[in-house]
């Protein structure tokens, strides 16, 4: 039941925030903050619980209620280690998103927070849904409010960016819908039962062309969400034009749903098809790493630069997922969390820069360290973290991915590792152009205050923790990685290999 509350609280809370906003903007902010703190209080204790509903595998919590029994759809939820990590990340980042909007969002405050909470609820739903149709429902719930956030509260070119975001996400949503319907129908053909239950569908034999096409539909949808080359094109513009809170949620959470979808659904549901697509996926990963890194270097808009770095980092994730081994998958989990933290922090910093300088243009920055030392040192720290500096979280993720990938695909691994050189190039040029250099322009020299410093310290502590002592996170993730290699999938793979 706790899982259901985890979703009900932010969904109802969104409505509450909207109503509160009609009377007083401040009330909307406070309500939203309290709602998320409550949600966090629900989520955290689940770490040490075990599911009271019998489900194959290791689950911390489960929930099942009838939804649309006629079509075999149920309100089936389940949380394991990876879900828990991503849900907690979602709530934490959500809290930061509300805090950074405190000064930035002035009009339509209530509706803004409602959209924020609904989008977060959608993301949480995506991470815990175990009914494919329910998953689709949450997928849409996560994206539509985000569309409003970009279109209403975004920057100069928000309309264009919002349309692009809408087209790409709805396109991939359509692919998901078609794929899960097709999967359910195959399952019905094989067993005579129409169901969208994840554990039932996992039993489906998905060999052959149709299985491959279903896999391809989901793969494309998730890879669009992951913003892999060459379907990344929605990301730079959307992240750049969204308000700070929107960019933070997009980069820290929404990208992760793509990776989660690949690990939770594509690989276990269609193992053979996924394995046969692996070479393509790996090369796409390498392409993303290099393409994102080269493009990041050339940007003159700091926010866009960071957006392109996400493409590069998600390339590592794609490689990690498609080498199908535990070490790399552990790396993927760590990298998802670490990237969520470091990139979230960077977007918060860019938001503060824009708030002070009224520009994101690197040509007009330079020498910020002289005027804003605290902001600049945090900026440098998180850029170095995202560059993969050993001792910080992102490195652990990338290192484990490369370690896991080496045995399976040495060439890919070597090229991916070479991609760390352009990563250093864009990271350092960003530091140079934003923070170093002469301070020529007169500007607001109001440095980070207590609220911003506190946020940064929390995020910095988290990224250091992940870097020096990732073991607890690895332990949380380990059982759920077994969930993602369920017995039917491994059996099917063995069958194919034997035959």
């Amino acid at each position, binding site marked *: 039941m706790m899982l259901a509350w985890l979703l009900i609280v932010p969904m109802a809370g969104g409505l509450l925030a909207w109503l509160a906003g009609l009377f007083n903007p401040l009330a909307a902010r406070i309500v939203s903050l309290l709602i998320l703190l409550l949600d966090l209080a629900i989520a955290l204790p689940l770490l040490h619980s075990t599911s009271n509903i019998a489900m194959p595998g290791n689950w911390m919590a489960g929930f099942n209620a009838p939804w649309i029994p006629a079509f075999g759809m149920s309100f089936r939820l389940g949380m394991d280690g990876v879900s828990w990590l991503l849900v907690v990340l979602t709530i934490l980042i959500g809290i930061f998103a509300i805090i950074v909007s405190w000064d930035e969002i002035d009009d339509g405050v209530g509706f803004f927070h409602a959209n924020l909470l609904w989008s977060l609820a959608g993301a949480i739903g995506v991470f815990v849904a175990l009914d494919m149709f329910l998953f689709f429902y949450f997928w849409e719930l996560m994206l539509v409010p985000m569309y409003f956030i970009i279109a209403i509260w975004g920057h100069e070119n928000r309309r264009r960016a919002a349309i692009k975001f809408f087209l790409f996400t709805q396109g991939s949503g359509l692919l998901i819908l078609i794929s899960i319907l097709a999967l359910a129908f195959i399952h019905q053909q094989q067993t005579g039962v129409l169901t969208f239950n994840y554990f039932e569908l996992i039993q489906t034999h998905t060999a052959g062309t149709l299985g491959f096409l279903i896999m391809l539909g989901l793969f494309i949808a998730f890879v669009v969400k992951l913003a892999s080359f060459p379907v990344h094109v929605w990301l730079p513009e959307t992240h750049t034009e969204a308000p700070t809170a929107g960019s933070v949620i997009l980069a820290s959470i929404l990208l992760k749903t793509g990776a989660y979808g690949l690990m939770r659904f594509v690989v276990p549901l269609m193992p053979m098809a996924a394995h046969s697509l692996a070479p393509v996926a790996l090369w796409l990963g390498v392409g993303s790493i290099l393409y994102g890194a080269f493009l990041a270097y050339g940007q003159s808009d700091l926010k866009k630069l960071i957006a392109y770095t996400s493409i590069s980092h998600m390339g590592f994730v794609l490689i990690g997922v498609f080498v199908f081994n535990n070490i790399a998958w552990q790396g993927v989990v760590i990298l998802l969390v670490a990237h969520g933290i470091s990139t979230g922090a960077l977007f918060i910093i860019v938001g503060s820069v824009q708030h002070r300088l009224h520009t994101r243009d690197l040509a007009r920055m330079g020498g910020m360290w002289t005027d804003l030392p605290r902001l600049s040192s945090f900026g440098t720290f998180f850029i170095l973290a995202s560059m993969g*500096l050993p001792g910080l979280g992102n490195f652990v993720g990338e290192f484990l991915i490369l370690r896991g990938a080496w045995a399976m695909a040495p060439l890919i691994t070597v090229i991916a590792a070479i991609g760390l050189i352009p990563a250093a190039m864009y990271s350092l040029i960003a530091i140079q152009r934003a923070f170093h250099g002469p301070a020529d322009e007169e500007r607001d020299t109001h440095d980070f205050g207590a609220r911003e410093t506190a946020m940064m310290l929390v995020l910095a502590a988290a990224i250091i923790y992940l870097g020096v002592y990732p073991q607890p996170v690895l332990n949380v993730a380990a059982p759920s990685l077994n969930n993602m290699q369920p017995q039917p999938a491994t059996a099917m793979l063995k069958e194919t290999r034997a035959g």
Partner: protein
Amino acid sequence: MISYLWLIPALPLLGSVILGMFGPSMGPRLSGAVGTLSVGLAAVLAMAIALQWLGHPPAHSMYQQTLWSWINLPGFSINVGLYLDPVSLLMVLVITIVGCLIHLFSTEYMEGEDGYSRFFAYLNLFVSAMLLLVLADDLALLFVGWEGVGVCSYLLVGFWFSESANGYAARKSFVVTRVADIFMLAGLLLLATQLGTLNIQNMLAGAVATWPSGSLMPAVAASLLLMGGLGKSAQVPLQTWLPDAMAGPTPVSALIHAATMVTAGVYLVVRTHALFLLAPSVLDAIAIGAVITLLVAAFAGLVQSDIKRVLAYSTMSQIGYMFLALGVGAWPAAMFHFMTHAVFKALLFLTAGAIAMRLDHEQNIFAMGGLRTKLPLAFWAFLIGSASLAALPVISAGFFSKEMILGAVAAAPMPGMVLWGAGILGAMLTAIYIFRVVFMVFLGPVNTEISGSYGLRVAIPLVTLSAGALVVGWLETPETLGGQTIFSQFLSPAVGVFRHLPVSAMIPLTGIAAPLLGVAIAYTLYRNGTWARAATTEPSRLTLFLKSGSGFDTLYDAVIVAPYMGLVQLLRRDPVDQMFMLLRDLAVALHRQLRATQIGQIRRYASWMMAGSVATIAILLFA
């Protein structure tokens, strides 16, 4: 005492955290004190451990301290643990003691600079990362320190960030070394996959047990590690960053780019020498590369006019000697030269900084002159340092360590005599270029205004290091000078017993004569005004070539940097995005076409309806 080992890297880290969090509000005196004391305490602790070690060495002459489990997965685990043996103990002593002196010097040198506490925060962080590098018992952990020192070097080279040129130098130093680090990372991945562990001792034992000597795998693994080391240690072909790194404050050059970080490559090879012994061809390549580096750098040193650049090239060249020793398997000789070099090169850099303090940050040797009487402390310190760098016989530490290397090279079975000849040529060139500086700076008329005076915080490090540069050589002496072997005996549990192989008497005699000849040449050219004339006339193309460090920068700019930037420019607007925009254009074009059919003419609509009906009927009839 030894169980407090973890405090050695932790103390400077703590100092760095304190300075980073509270530095701006602490004021310069307290910042300097925290920075210096944290390293000072680590030095005291290191010396206490060393004394205990000398009295009662632990079993097998090594001590392991596992702190916590970093990554523990089925099939792959890494512990955060420290490993102390004579090699790492020696490194720790040099890093903390020289580091402490340099911190002390910096408190006076950096006085009045903006970002005073930030400077010490970075410097402390560097020391901590360097200590982690040498104490790590796992290659992955070593890599953490390895990249950590790289980042600190980057931050400190670009410390005066308002100058864009400093930023460029800083980025160059980091990116070039990161290229090397990627090789090393690949080496780590290879070793981890092949041998299942990165714990250094287990990995080496596994390598020796699994791989026959001379086979491919150890050669590949050793080459990859070596490339990492070459980058960090500024050796050909990854040496180009070091001269530019002189943009940083001079104490940084002394600590990072002379005494400690740049010798990390030497340490890495010594630490994993069992792996390199399985790959004789790689060792040969090391020796040959070392000779190239030491000559390229020595020639470059001959024609520089900036005192720090002379010292930078001399560092490159001296590390070349260390790699030469590694190439012939003379591990203790490499470590010995590392130690003496750390002392005399730190001394030279600090003295150059001390001179600059009094001369309004002048670094051009041709603008100086006559400082012998004006700055006696600097003169004597620089002279002692130069004597050691040039390896002047008996009186200098550098003499003993260079003799040890050249003796081992001459006795090596490989084309040892050729390498030895190159080493001797290098030794002569070294004496010429450094005494060129000594004569230009300290003799002749005074050309500059001199202001201020030295405080104790400058004097103590200079005097201490001068004393060191005179005496540390006596820890290991050739047969004819007492045959002292304390140093190599101390290291022997870690790297094996070192034998001074018998060579003909000509070898040491030539080694003594070469530097003396070099000094004489330098003096002659100084007296007849050749140096001074060269500074004022248009340099020849050969001079320009040598001065640029033999044109590596030009080559890399043309072959790597320019294409890279070209690609960045080409992709800047995201061509894939533009392809997707074609879809939009297509939709708009179709829209225009279709709109043209809806122009309100009933006649046309009627004819379309007609056509449609006919088509439908036709399909129904014939399908």
